[in-house]
């Protein structure tokens, strides 16, 4: 079967394995090597692509919910969007959610995703009480932070390389509105942007959109959006109808000039330095989900997202250098998202560390990978790291330098015979 991820690059042929029950899954695992679980195909690069795909998405049963503790038990193929549809009207929200709700719970654990509240709540694994996973020998293990801790640390952020997650118990958080009080702060340069992040740190949700084509003393100008849930009791959350991009745009549609025009309009529509809005959950957390197949605007060659993080002490200098390199290259990124993160957790490969992360979308075109290699050098120089969930091209050397616990992860996989059993194109490339 022909498969791809959200970046539409690469497109590969894989064998897809489905299972009705644990017995069948055990047999698949026993009989095949180079397996990799595949959820909803929303990681950007090649982390869920490989020779043999295990199709987890059909396993989408809700199992139990505890109204008192907010503990929700679901199978790994359940989408975050399904959780929201059922539970926002009852006054519950995800403790941690990434910028799309169309990912599976299994995928959220495997990528140890994070969101606008990382500086307060940390990664997705923070809300995971426990999960069950079928590992190399077909054994089903119930795993929590406490026991066995190595499996938990290797699986959360482990990109599906420790086995197939079957189900998970996750804590939801109580809310009393589907609306968010949003404050938008307009800044003129990177210095102001950093100051704004610090100033609004007390608000649980924050993220900034950066104009990465800005030049010289305007480099780093942004719109910072920060907010928290309202308390008005309005919870009538419904699935919205959505627009959809019906076909791949021609690849020239997004170019330096169209991105420049977009940025100018987007930045220009905000007049005051500080303004307030009332927005709903979907607008605030999932703006891009409103447009189906938005990946098609990058054309049929696909796109990639380059996301890195730099330690806080080096963030200013590093970002300035990187933004300058991008601006000089003239390669527009439609979407450039900056965020201040909280402390790192103990998981071996979880992406977040305390510092600033920037995510940039680029369409795949000539000269792009050379630019990204150049950015890699700066990231490494400032002791930063690359996010595997978005990645499709980082080299083994660059990757290794960013993740000091990489050898523990490798060793753990080897000891438990996971290294040949579970592999993706990405794991082979970066040698994990």
């Amino acid at each position, binding site marked *: 079967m022909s498969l791809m991820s959200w970046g539409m690059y690469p497109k590969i042929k894989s064998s897809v394995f*489905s299972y009705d029950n644990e017995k069948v899954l055990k047999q698949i695992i026993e009989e095949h090597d180079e397996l990799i679980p595949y959820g909803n195909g929303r990681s950007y690069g090649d982390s869920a692509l490989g020779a043999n795909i295990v199709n987890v998405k059909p396993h989408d*049963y*809700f199992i139990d919910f505890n109204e008192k503790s907010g503990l929700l038990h679901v199978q790994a193929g359940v989408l975050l969007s399904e959780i929201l549809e059922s539970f926002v009207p009852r006054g519950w929200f995800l403790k941690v959610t990434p910028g799309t709700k169309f990912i599976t719970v299994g995928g959220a654990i495997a990528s140890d995703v994070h969101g606008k509240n990382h500086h307060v709540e940390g990664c997705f694994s923070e809300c995971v009480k426990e999960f069950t996973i079928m590992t190399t020998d077909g054994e089903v293990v119930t795993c929590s932070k406490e026991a066995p801790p190595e499996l938990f640390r290797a699986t959360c952020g482990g990109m599906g390389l420790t086995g197939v997650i079957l189900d998970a118990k996750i804590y939801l958080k109580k809310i009393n509105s589907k609306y968010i009080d949003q404050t938008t702060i307009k800044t003129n340069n990177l210095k102001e942007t950093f100051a704004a992040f610090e100033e609004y740190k007390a608000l649980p949700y924050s993220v900034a959109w950066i104009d990465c084509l800005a030049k010289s003393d305007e480099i780093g100008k942004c719109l910072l959006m920060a907010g928290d849930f309202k308390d008005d009791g309005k919870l009538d959350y419904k699935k919205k109808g959505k627009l959809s991009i019906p076909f791949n745009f021609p690849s020239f549609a997004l170019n330096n000039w169209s991105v420049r025009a977009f940025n100018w309009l987007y930045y220009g529509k905000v007049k005051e330095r500080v303004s307030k809005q009332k927005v709903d959950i979907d607008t605030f957390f999932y703006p891009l989900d409103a447009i189906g197949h938005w990946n098609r605007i990058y054309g049929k060659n696909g796109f990639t997202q380059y996301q890195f993080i730099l330690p806080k002490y080096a963030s200013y200098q590093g970002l300035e250098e990187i933004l300058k390199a991008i601006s000089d290259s003239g390669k527009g990124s439609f979407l450039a998202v900056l965020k201040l993160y909280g402390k790192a957790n103990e998981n071996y490969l979880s992406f977040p560390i305390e510092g600033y992360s920037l995510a940039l979308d680029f369409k795949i075109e000539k000269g792009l990978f050379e630019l990204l290699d150049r950015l890699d050098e700066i990231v490494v120089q400032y002791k930063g790291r690359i996010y595997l969930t978005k990645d499709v091209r980082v080299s083994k050397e660059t990757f290794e330098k960013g993740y000091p616990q990489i050898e523990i992860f490798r060793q753990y996989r080897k000891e438990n015979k996971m290294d040949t059993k579970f592999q993706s194109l990405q794991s082979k490339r970066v040698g994990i």
Partner: protein
Amino acid sequence: MSYVLIIGAKSDIAKATAREYAKHGYDLYLAARNVSELEEFVNDITVRTQRTVKPVELDILNYESHQSFYDQLGEKPLGVISAIGYLGDQDKAQSDFSEAKLIMDSNYTGVVSLFNIIADDFEKRRSGFIVGISSVAGDRGRKSNYIYGSAKAALTAYLSGLRNRLYDSRVHVMTVKPGFVATKMTEGMELPKKLTAQPEEVAEDIYKAQQKNKNVLYTKWMWHWVMLIIKAIPEWKFKGISI
């Protein structure tokens, strides 16, 4: 709110439809053979929606049991949706009549037996809706699946007649004609992506169309146009092509 009865509840389309109706506040009777296999699914809907979901045993091929099946439902359903579909093996059905008969009985005879009983009740109380999932395969016979197609064609004609009969009693009958749907029934077939619906899309279409009292629903919508073209091909031409 009242119950909707879903027949053939183990199919992927039925499951998606069940979730859709529960989401909109309906309680459910889920009818299927070996219904205990639906236990986890019943629990799934309950956790998702807090609706009441009751599994009920039903063998669509055991016609004698249909009256007692319907009688045992304490509170009679507001509407019924049949998602029974058995594609069968066309090649086998050509040479082995028992397979052909199984395809016809599952897709047509059994549904007629049960719908007759339900239609009488709805007609008497002058309310309710009946949704039958037929297929675009019933719009024109093709060599690859004409036994299945003929059974669905019969069902389509039956539903059309029933709609006509129940019009005065204000009971609405809707015929659903899905094109390709990504389900267990079509697993392994290479289906054209643009024309293939996910079960959830079909379920959403069914719910919306039923609420609007639509008569015939093609899903995805473009199948309406695809089938108009296929039906318009003259027979002398059609008999020579492979589609």
